[in-house]
């Protein structure tokens, strides 16, 4: 519904369902605000967005109202510029400032502080109050977030995000009136996996990034690149920033179709491994048992010679590496010699997921669209740990059904306080079938804990309820009852969403989830189906290869000495140690392209330093099938570069001319026409805005004539970027670049991240130029996809043995982020989780050390109980150093250590 309103006597056509603050900002007017947030809407707490509202055309006086709490109405007259409104806003800021500390020079928010911006905007520039200031003590909040409570302006955004939006329990508001305090009940690590968003949500410097503090740099001095998080399969959009050759921080990059305004803490704080001392920064050759650095030219010549003398070098790709790098390795060694860098069980599962996405029978919604579903059924995923931001999206989805209560009494969606009052914390239909407790249990309306096969059987029973033609029956009466409840709820919903994934390595779960979604679709429901995959480019790398690590291991033999090129992949993380040792020993030359020293690089003979997402360009494909481009942040002063650049140098075909990203993508899409969309993910390197490149640094970037002056007083020429339309300086186009090429947000008067308002067509909505990324799989109304007829064995645990399942940890299960110092503080110690009654029967108590057989080796681990594991199963934390290389699930025996 459109409405016509008059702001300061100028007419505007606006969306009638919004409030006046959103409307004014969407038009592009500057109206100060603090407590309103586009993702969390209005509560009217800060009184900063005051405007004058007139009764009608003749009303000359009007009354002062808060724009964020007033709906748009047809023929409404308001004024932002009226002197009374102006004076009120300036007075409000002046009042807030009476207690504000004299901190800006040492405040990490300075230069991107919403409070600074709003203070300047209201025109308050002289302190008249000269009495004492209130002070607060700070709290230690863990390795991620710094606390400086003096700077608080009581806007309540932090608790509204932390508690209401993200479901956190340990941050709250204390005390009263002038003394209100935002913190924890007592000092301690913030428990929420989304705590880092406080840094961006808080309009002041109360909550700031502790990892940035270690090497503090102001926003204006950072060189930034639009990038994509590589730490799980969701592909959240990020801005990564550099100064003096190291990566300083990661911020959320708004993508209305993916992560919106937020990130999880693994994505935000897991970047520090890029600056690690263990980085491989120069090519090296193994001589007499230790690595000796060689020049890039020598390394390339040497490897070229190796490849030319024997014609069947094999290549092992990686789900962590970009499409471009995987593709060029495949070209270099030939498709027959190229292997996806994952075990077969995982690889086949990923291809199964791709087949389901590809048939298009049901829609796979984006991360952001997941928020619009009103009934959710999760099968076998611990989302908070395997796909954190999806857990955050689903928390919002759980509010949709109860929010109808508020809508029924005509409370508009943007009125957050009233909506919450009406809903009283109720949640909509939300079901979880998992192998153990998960952090989403608090909003679940039904929970089922079972072994992976039983979860699949349960899923099929739900599908059988929805589509009676399917021949699935529930295992027992209790399960039948729960599956009835779930199927009824899914059928009653407007938009039911099914979520599953590969984390339990169970094909039957993947298929059962599809069965439910298909059944709903066949009953005419607008169903959604989301799969979670193991890594950032799992889908992409699986599209390029259908041979797996086992195949590579099987074909290697001592008779024909060959060479292997391993791309950004630590095989010891994925395969059994002994098998990997044997495999690598078969090769005369083991050439690794990697970022960090690891077991595989230590067993290599030649190393090439590969760029992480911060030093490389490329494309990765997220779990949704969205191809997204990430760009190099800076040109390091060492030999680190994109893997595909190394590979291009090794390829004879590219000998003559230097090859750039676009050329690789052209070749890739020529070889894989189905991946054509990758070409259109972002503008090509030749793109110019107003004849200019897009600068990676803001206009105010400082120190250009001094940064390198210690080495040489004449300024070096800034590096060129042949691969993108971005430049490495602050020179270039000033204004709003295409969204896929937006390295930072800034607009006159808006120095904080909230300048994003100016980059959106409508605040909180799509970006000018469309949300970046191209989806490879779209729903197909004519899809004839068939149901899966798998009937998983109702696997009863083997007598005297435990089925060991992987347990995921947001901090720890991803090997790279776990090597970032701040994240490392949160990585759990290795343990083994047991079912409580199993443990009781065996006389095992919490913390007891038990002996377990892991790939033939005895290991001793402390026991954890109360994790909700079903009987007969045990769990090990996935991806820790101590649990690397395990292929799940497996059966094993355990016993109390010392009892023989």
């Amino acid at each position, binding site marked *: 519904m459109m409405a016509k309103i008059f702001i300061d006597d100028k007419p505007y056509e606006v969306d009638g369902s919004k409030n006046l603050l959103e409307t004014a900002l969407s038009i592009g007017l500057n109206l100060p605000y603090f407590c309103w947030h586009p993702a969390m809407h209005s509560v009217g707490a800060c009184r900063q967005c005051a405007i004058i509202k007139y009764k009608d055309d003749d009303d000359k006086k009007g009354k002062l109202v808060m724009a964020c709490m007033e709906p748009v109405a047809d023929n409404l007259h308001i004024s932002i510029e009226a002197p009374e409104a102006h004076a009120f806003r300036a007075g409000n800021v002046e009042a807030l400032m009476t207690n504000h500390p004299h901190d*800006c*020079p040492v405040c990490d928010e300075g230069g991107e502080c919403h409070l600074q911006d709003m203070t300047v905007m209201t025109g308050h520039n002289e302190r008249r109050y000269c009495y004492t200031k209130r*002070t607060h003590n700070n709290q230690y909040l863990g390795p991620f977030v710094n606390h400086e409570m003096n700077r608080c302006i009581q806007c309540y955004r932090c608790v509204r995000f932390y508690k209401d939006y993200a479901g956190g329990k340990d941050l709250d508001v*204390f005390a009263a009136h002038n003394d209100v305090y935002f913190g924890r009940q007592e000092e301690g690590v913030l428990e929420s996996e989304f705590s880092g968003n406080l840094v961006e949500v808080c309009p002041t410097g109360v909550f700031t990034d502790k990892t940035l503090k270690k090497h503090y740099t102001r926003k204006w001095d950072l060189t930034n690149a639009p990038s994509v998080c590589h730490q799980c399969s969701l592909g959240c959009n990020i801005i990564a920033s550099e100064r003096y050759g190291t990566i300083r921080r990661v911020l959320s990059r708004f993508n209305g179709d993916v992560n919106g305004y937020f990130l999880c803490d693994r994505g935000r704080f897991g970047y520090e491994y890029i600056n690690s001392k263990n980085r491989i920064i120069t090519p090296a050759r193994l001589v007499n048992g230790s690595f000796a650095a060689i020049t890039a030219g020598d390394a390339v010549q040497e490897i070229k010679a190796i490849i030319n003398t024997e014609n069947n070098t094999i290549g092992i790709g990686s789900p962590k590496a970009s499409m471009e790098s995987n593709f060029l390795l495949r070209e270099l060694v030939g498709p027959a010699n190229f292997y996806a860098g994952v075990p077969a069980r995982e690889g086949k599962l990923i291809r199964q997921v791709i087949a389901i996405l590809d048939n298009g029978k049901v829609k796979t919604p984006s991360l952001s669209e997941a928020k619009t579903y009103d009934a959710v059924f999760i099968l076998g995923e611990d989302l908070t740990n395997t796909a954190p931001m999806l857990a955050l999206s689903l928390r919002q989805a759980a509010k949709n059904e109860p929010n109808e209560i508020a809508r029924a009494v005509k409370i508009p969606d943007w009125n957050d306080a009233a909506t919450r009052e009406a809903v009283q914390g109720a949640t909509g239909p939300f079901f979880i079938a998992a192998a153990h407790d998960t952090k989403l249990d608090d909003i679940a309306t039904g929970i089922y804990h079972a072994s992976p096969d039983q979860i699949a059987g349960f899923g099929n029973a739900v599908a059988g309820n929805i589509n009676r033609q399917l021949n699935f029956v529930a295992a027992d009466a209790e399960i039948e009852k729960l599956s009835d409840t779930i199927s009824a709820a899914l059928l009653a919903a407007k938009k039911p969403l099914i979520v599953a994934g590969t984390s339990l390595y169970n094909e039957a779960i993947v298929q059962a989830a599809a069965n439910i979604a298909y059944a709903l679709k066949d009953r005419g429901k607008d169903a959604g189906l989301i799969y979670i995959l193991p890594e950032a480019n799992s889908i992409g790398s699986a599209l390029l290869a259908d041979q797996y690590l086992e195949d590579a291991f099987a074909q290697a033999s001592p008779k024909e000495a060959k060479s292997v090129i391993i791309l950004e992949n630590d095989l010891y993380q994925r395969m059994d140690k002994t098998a990997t040792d044997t495999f690598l020993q078969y090769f005369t030359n083991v050439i690794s392209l990697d970022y960090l020293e690891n077991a595989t690089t230590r067993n290599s003979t030649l190393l090439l330093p590969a760029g992480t997402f911060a030093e490389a360009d490329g494309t990765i494909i997220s779990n949704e099938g969205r191809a997204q481009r990430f760009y190099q942040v800076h040109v390091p002063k060492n030999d680190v570069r994109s893997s595909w650049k190394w590979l291009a140098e090794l390829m004879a075909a590219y000998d003559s001319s230097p090859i750039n990203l676009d050329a690789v993508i052209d070749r890739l899409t020529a070889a894989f026409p189905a991946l054509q969309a990758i070409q259109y993910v972002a503008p090509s390197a030749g793109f110019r805005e107003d004849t200019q490149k897009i600068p990676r640094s803001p206009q105010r970037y400082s120190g250009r004539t001094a940064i390198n002056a210690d080495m040489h*007083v004449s300024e070096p020429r800034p590096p060129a970027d042949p691969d993108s339309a971005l430049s490495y300086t602050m020179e270039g186009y000033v204004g709003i670049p295409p969204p896929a090429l937006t390295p930072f947000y800034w607009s006159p008067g808006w120095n904080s991240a909230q300048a994003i308002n100016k980059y959106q067509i409508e605040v909180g909505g799509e970006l000018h130029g469309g949300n970046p990324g191209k989806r490879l799989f779209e729903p197909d109304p004519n899809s004839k996809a068939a149901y899966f007829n798998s009937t998983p064995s109702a696997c009863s645990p083997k007598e005297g043995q435990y089925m060991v399942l992987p347990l995921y940890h947001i901090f720890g299960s991803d090997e790279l982020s776990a090597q970032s110092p701040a994240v490392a503080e949160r990585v759990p110690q290795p343990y083994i989780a047991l079912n409580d009654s199993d443990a009781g029967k065996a006389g095992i108590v919490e913390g007891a050390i038990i002996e377990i057989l892991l790939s033939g080796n005895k290991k001793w681990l402390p026991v954890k109980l109360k994790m909700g594991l079903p009987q007969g199963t045990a769990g090990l934390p996935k991806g820790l150093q101590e649990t690397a290389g395990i292929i799940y699930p497996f059966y094993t025996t355990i016993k109390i250590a010392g009892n023989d």
Partner: protein
Amino acid sequence: MFSILRSIWLTFIHMFHKRVTVEYPEKKNYLPPRHRGRIVLTRDPDNQERCVGCYLCAVACPVDCISLQATEDENGRRSAEFFRINFSRCILCGYCEEACPTDAIQLIPDFEMAEYNRQNLVYEKEDLLIDGQGKYPGYNFFKHAGVDAGVKAKGEGIDEEKPVDIKKLMP
């Protein structure tokens, strides 16, 4: 004719005027304290480095010749890890001093910095830091700021109340 003679006369009597040319460098002119010459980094009344590494001078500099990195000691006190001014670029405009919120960076009445080798015009922190307060004595930023950086405890600064007891019930 008359005007030529007048000009000659006027030129002639100049010989008896007071000389304005100063025999620099034998004689040196008086430069007022606010003269904008060589840049120094000063110390606060407690003899601690005043610079808190806020980057404001660097961003104010129109020729971008200041570069630094902030760091923190164990008490949370900020200072510059390195601080570099490339005087071969500096135009002695004084914007940095104007921008500095702690009175740390100051321009002093010394301009004799000529070098044969341009590289020697790059000054590092040890070349810039002096042992005194310069022309603005008395100011100690951390006594005014809200942060506890080992200079004063929370609530002990100038114009600060004792920290709020958030558990008290009285209004």
